[in-house]
């Protein structure tokens, strides 16, 4: 087997599909006009981004005027949260989110709390990472203006019952945002069926380019502009549009929606094979997240007695690119807030490994991964004082 790189971190980012890259190319070099310009070269760009907008709207079940381009998923999240909370603060300064959100969401809420005097309620999750809709019902107050709950979790892949949660917010007249950055490309997301008010996405998670995202804003939602300047995006998000980027995003989204079923089947097969083999061959392993309600390509294991960064470094030496929720890989002193929120002890959370499969991964790669993991985990356990202690006591 080719011992080159085996990429298993598709939740971090994906490569740009060749078809997507082809669609983008002329817009860098040949058709470079500014979409705001009135001459033909500019009009051509304007037409292209409006077609891209229509394509994205079509996939998501939205109206084109409800799609706004951003520079990233993080920007879309920040805009959705700060933009609506600040625009509606006369109504109230209470907002709700969950303990397992991406930092783009958590930090935006932190900003509201610390700088703008908002009160934030953080909904808990169960041991599989699922939010209980009853908790949301209880948390909504007369002064609540916004609820933000992620569609699918980036670490453990858990998929939330967004339609049910959004309906609760709708009944109480509270704006509902979902960070669907990880869900798009894996789930046939439709904003009307979900009945959400705001939804963020990021192109590089579904084989599109980096540096471009979008925010769906349901017609009639009151929110402040986030980036001030020119009249782009109907004066709500200034800045010359990333023309090749949005064209790439639209092309990638269309491909994702066209191939959703095959893609999910492929990822599901790889994940099942991986999970079964690991559970069969490596002892003292914990599968994190929900077994059913999860993204098809996400597998998150904790290997007891070993530490995640060491695991990643050794996998990297064998050509395998993966991710961990260990503190040492997060740049902070605590392991992942998601793993702690689902009730894992620090020790178990430090030994986590996230594998996110993609289009090009094969069953042979899964087998190589399992063989390599078995070897590495054994090596690390042999030098782990925790394992030594465990063996002596059992």
């Amino acid at each position: 087997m080719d011992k080159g790189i085996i990429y298993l971190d598709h939740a971090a980012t994906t490569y740009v599909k060749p078809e997507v890259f082809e669609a983008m190319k002329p817009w860098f070099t040949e058709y470079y006009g500014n979409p705001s310009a009135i001459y033909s070269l500019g009009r051509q760009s304007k037409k292209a981004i409006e077609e891209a907008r229509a394509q994205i709207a079509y996939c998501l079940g939205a109206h084109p005027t409800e799609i706004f381009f951003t520079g990233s998923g993080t920007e879309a999240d920040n805009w959705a949260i700060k933009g609506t909370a600040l625009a509606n603060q006369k109504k109230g300064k209470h907002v709700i989110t969950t303990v397992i959100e991406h930092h783009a969401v958590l930090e935006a809420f932190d900003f509201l709390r610390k700088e703008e005097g908002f009160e934030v309620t953080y909904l808990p999750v169960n041991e599989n990472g699922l939010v209980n809709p009853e908790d949301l019902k209880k948390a909504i107050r007369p002064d609540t203006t916004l609820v933000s709950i992620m569609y699918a979790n980036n670490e453990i892949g858990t998929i939330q019952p967004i339609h049910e949660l959004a309906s609760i917010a709708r009944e109480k007249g509270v704006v509902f945002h979902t960070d669907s950055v990880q869900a798009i490309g894996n789930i046939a997301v439709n904003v009307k069926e979900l009945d959400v008010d705001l939804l963020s996405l990021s192109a590089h998670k579904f084989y599109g380019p980096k540096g471009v995202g979008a925010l769906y804003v349901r017609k009639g939602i009151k929110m402040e502009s986030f980036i001030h300047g020119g009249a782009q995006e109907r004066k709500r998000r200034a800045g010359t549009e990333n023309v090749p980027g949005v064209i790439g995003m639209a092309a990638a989204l269309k491909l994702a929606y066209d191939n959703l079923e095959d893609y999910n089947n492929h990822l599901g097969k790889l994940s099942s094979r991986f999970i079964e083999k690991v559970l069969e061959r490596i002892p003292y392993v914990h599968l994190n997240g929900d077994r059913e309600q999860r993204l098809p390509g996400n597998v998150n294991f904790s290997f007891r007695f070993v530490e995640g960064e060491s695991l990643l470094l050794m996998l990297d030496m064998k050509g395998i690119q993966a991710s961990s929720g260990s503190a040492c890989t997060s740049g902070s002193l605590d392991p992942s807030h998601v793993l702690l929120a689902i009730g894992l002890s620090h020790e178990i959370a430090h030994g986590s490994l996230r594998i996110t499969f993609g289009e090009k991964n094969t069953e042979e790669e899964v087998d190589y991964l399992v063989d390599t993991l078995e070897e590495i985990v054994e090596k690390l356990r042999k030098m782990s004082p925790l394992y030594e202690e465990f063996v002596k006591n059992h």
Partner: protein
Amino acid sequence: MYSEKVMDHFTNPRNVGEIENADGIGQVGNAKCGDIMKVYLKIENDIIVDVKFKTFGCGAAVATSSMATELIKGKTLDEASKITNKAVTEALGGLPPVKMHCSVLAEEAVIAAIDDYKKKMGMDVPDTRCSGCCGKCGDTRTE
């Protein structure tokens, strides 16, 4: 992120293992922090004739453990007691700033093992140096 020397000590750690009937054993750190280091010493005539370690932790924790054991092997207890995290880090060609606390752990584990030996021999043991990293008081990583 890591220097070649760190990666070398991480990939091929020196002195990994246990010593049966070790003369001194020191264990520092805790699982909450994400790293634990255990050092075993074999001591003859005040000289560390053998040393082994086991570490649960990141690449830097493993590499500093390995380097620290190399630095004290064959040394007298007095010499070994003077080990500092600075010396371990320098011998490894440096560590990323966020990983500096790992080198403190290696220093503390060596000292703890020496202290353990001294206690067994009925010798005076000074108060353990505290970097806030050993986990003994639960107030971890405050440095």
